[in-house]
């Protein structure tokens, strides 16, 4: 009731009120769309590669705005205000160059609106992996590996507030208080119900990936970095989307060795290069453990392309191609060592033999930004192979 003077002061519970969440999520989706277009830049950053799970990554992007018919913000006079004693000629701010934007607060520059999108590593992964697939997967073998999908189809008692199911919560509150003999909609923590999801196992096909890495002395810091970052994303991708895929790690200089994951990433570089050893070892392992009739096989090798006995490698890749779904060869060229567009000798030899063979994908990487296109080339659908 209005009393005199005419005002009311009230305080009500607002726990269930989260209207803005929906629009916030829609904005997030739009930010993700923008980020997806720039994934190449983003995923090549060292701090993302070394990030642990749950870490929050900040990505500066230009804020999403609706366009307006507006005045050019960089021309003409504006009016500002100082703490006193401002004089003509005083510099009150700097305009950052194009592309900069990290670490800036929104709204300090007229007309430029930067926004730091925050993602957990997992969310970023999801974006990265959305369009990646193991190409040409075929149904092989009896041992069905499971991949999981999630479906929003159940109700839980605990959950994030943004998933609250208001109707069910109110019904619960009403039922509880009705049982107590005084039906009303006063909500207690126990009444809350949340929409939740179930993990639905989905049958999937057997697959084994051979991650092979040139660790010879000619592989410099840059080459090793590219190699590691490619395999980092590859592993993340396989483990997110194809949970039970098997991965065989092989390092190779003049001798090839099967190693565990930790050793694979930590391996230092020394000695000469004889990559035919890596393929020999892989073929050996296939023979012993992964019958090609039962398994989808994907060998990947990263090297700088300087190798002893390219001819032998070509022959082994030929053999490999007959039993693999897709073979990937990545050649890393540090452009500091002179700028050429051509493959190094090994890449050249492979190119001459396999340029028209869709089962063998050859990629040349010259900068950090090339890692993402390489991933996309290896792990996109390759329809031309499926027709073979």
């Amino acid at each position: 009731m209005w009393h005199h003077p005419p005002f009311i002061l009230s305080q009500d519970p607002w726990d269930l009120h989260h209207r803005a969440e929906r629009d916030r999520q829609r904005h997030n989706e739009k930010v993700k769309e923008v980020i997806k277009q720039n994934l190449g830049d983003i995923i090549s950053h060292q701090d993302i590669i070394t990030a642990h799970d749950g870490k929050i990554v900040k990505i500066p992007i230009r804020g999403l705005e609706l366009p307006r018919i507006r005045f050019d913000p960089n021309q003409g006079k504006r009016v500002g205000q100082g703490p006193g004693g401002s004089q003509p000629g005083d510099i009150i701010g700097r305009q950052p160059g194009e592309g900069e934007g990290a670490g800036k607060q929104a709204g300090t520059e007229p007309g430029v609106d930067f926004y730091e999108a925050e993602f957990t590593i997992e969310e970023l992964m999801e974006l990265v992996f959305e369009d990646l697939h193991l190409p040409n997967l075929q149904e092989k073998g009896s041992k069905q590996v499971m991949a999981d999908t999630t479906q929003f189809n159940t109700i839980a008692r605990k959950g994030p507030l943004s998933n609250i199911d208001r109707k069910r919560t109110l019904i619960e509150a009403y039922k509880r208080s009705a049982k107590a003999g005084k039906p009303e909609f006063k909500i207690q923590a126990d009444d809350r119900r949340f929409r939740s999801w179930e993990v639905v196992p989905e049958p999937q096909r057997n697959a084994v990936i051979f991650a092979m890495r040139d660790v010879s002395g000619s592989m410099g810091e840059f080459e090793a970095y590219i190699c590691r970052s490619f395999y980092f994303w590859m592993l993340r991708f396989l483990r997110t989307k194809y949970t039970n895929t098997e991965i065989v790690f092989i390092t190779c200089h003049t001798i090839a060795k099967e190693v565990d994951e930790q050793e694979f990433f930590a391996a230092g570089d020394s000695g000469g290069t004889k990559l035919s050893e890596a393929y020999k070892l892989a073929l050996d392992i296939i023979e012993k453990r992964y019958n090609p009739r039962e398994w989808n096989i994907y060998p990947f090798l990263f090297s700088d392309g300087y190798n002893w006995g390219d001819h032998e490698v070509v022959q082994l890749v030929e053999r490999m191609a007959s039993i693999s779904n897709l073979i990937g060869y990545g050649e890393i060229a540090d452009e500091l060592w002179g700028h050429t567009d051509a493959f190094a000798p090994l890449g050249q030899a492979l190119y001459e033999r396999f340029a028209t063979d869709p089962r063998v994908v050859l990629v040349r990487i010259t900068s950090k930004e090339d890692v993402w296109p390489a991933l996309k080339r290896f792990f996109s659908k390759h329809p031309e192979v499926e027709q073979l």
Partner: protein
Amino acid sequence: MTAQERADLEKFIEQAWETAIGMGLEPFPVHFELVPAHVIYEIGSYGLPARFSHWTFGRDYHRQKTMYEYNVARIYELVINTDPAQAFLLENNSLLANKMVAAHVIGHSDFFRNNTYFAHTDRRMVERARLHADRIRQYEMEYGPQRVEQFLDAVLSIEEHIDPVEPTYRRPQPEEYRHQKPTLVRPTSEFDDLLGRVETPEPPSTRRIPPEPEKDLLLFLRDYARDLEDWQRDIIGMVREEMLYFLPQIRTKIMNEGWASLVHERILESLPLTPAEHLEFRRMHSSVLAPGSRMSINPYYVGYQILRDIERRWNGEPPEEDEQPETDWLQRPKPRPEGEGWRKLLEVREMECDVTFLRKYLTEGLVKRLDLYTYKLEEVNGELVWRIQETDWEKVRDALLDSMTNFGVPVVTVEDGDYDRRGELYLKHHYDGKPLDIEYTTRTLKNIYTIWGRPVHLETVADGTRLIFTCDGQQVKQRKG
């Protein structure tokens, strides 16, 4: 907030209200609601509770909430212009902060009720906005959220292009133009009319749409875009109505905040506070009324200082140091009746909007004391810097007024809705020396095309020559006109 604190606050508001009435204020009744932070940030980013859904509001909400969580900035109060007014206070603010905010709200409520620019705002806008939201949600279900979002994106990107005079002014329909605008005929003598020499003017072509250049782009599109469906016309109408509601707030930002700040100060000073409370109040008051970033002005501070200056002058108090005494047009000292200050302020809060307020009352002394200046982007040693240009008070004032003209938005009118007899839309930017942002304009034209459905032209001036942008739906081309 505890029950005890709430009772304390309630008692304070009662006293504050009586004080405000004693000062001559006439606020709308106010419903104060104590709410958690996320609610105040939500309403703040939508502008109204339960307004329609759009990702730009979600973006603003996210930003404000993040700034609050990082303690960068916080909203203290939010008040909605309705009758009764609805005010939202932050429940975890200190008791004193909420007292100050409540007094501030009384100032806003008085301003909404009395300022003439608000006379035609819909005081039941919350209900109306809720109905709009329901309708838009219905359209989402019927036509798909994507289609609705895409259309809303287009409409919202031109939402400022309405005519604030509109609520009181009914446009003549094209057929009514037949009877207007007689062509001027040079008279041969003053008895022309008696001698029947007046020619009957040809009625102007009624085919011309709009009959006169139309500033209300939304209204024009709603009524004349050929291929729109009913739900789309409805959306344009709703966005326009809400914009008409918000416009007076945009046009009186400096005055409204200045007035509310002055009111909260007067109320708190006239009520008993403990020394600790008084200290906290002074600290908060001066943090609200401090110069902001050097790139902009703080409307609270500027508005408050100008109002105080008016009061001082109309009270006949001596000028501030290093200020010339005011003179009339004969250079005689201007007489001021004593004790008129507050009455003058009540008049100012009723009659002015920011543009008229600054033009009349921003004086030389104020520009200096507020340390206002103009600045622009310049290249210095290969680096782009924002540099102060002038501190001369008239130049500063004019630049400020210029930036507020048409609420800071380029004036665009519809010149022809059947351009070249092909049903194309011809828009004209009324160039006043400030060039347009080409990238933004280009993108906006694509949005207007989405609504109009046929090629859209926009005439403007760049580098001294007439330039016409044309959007054919695919791309935007420019040509010299």
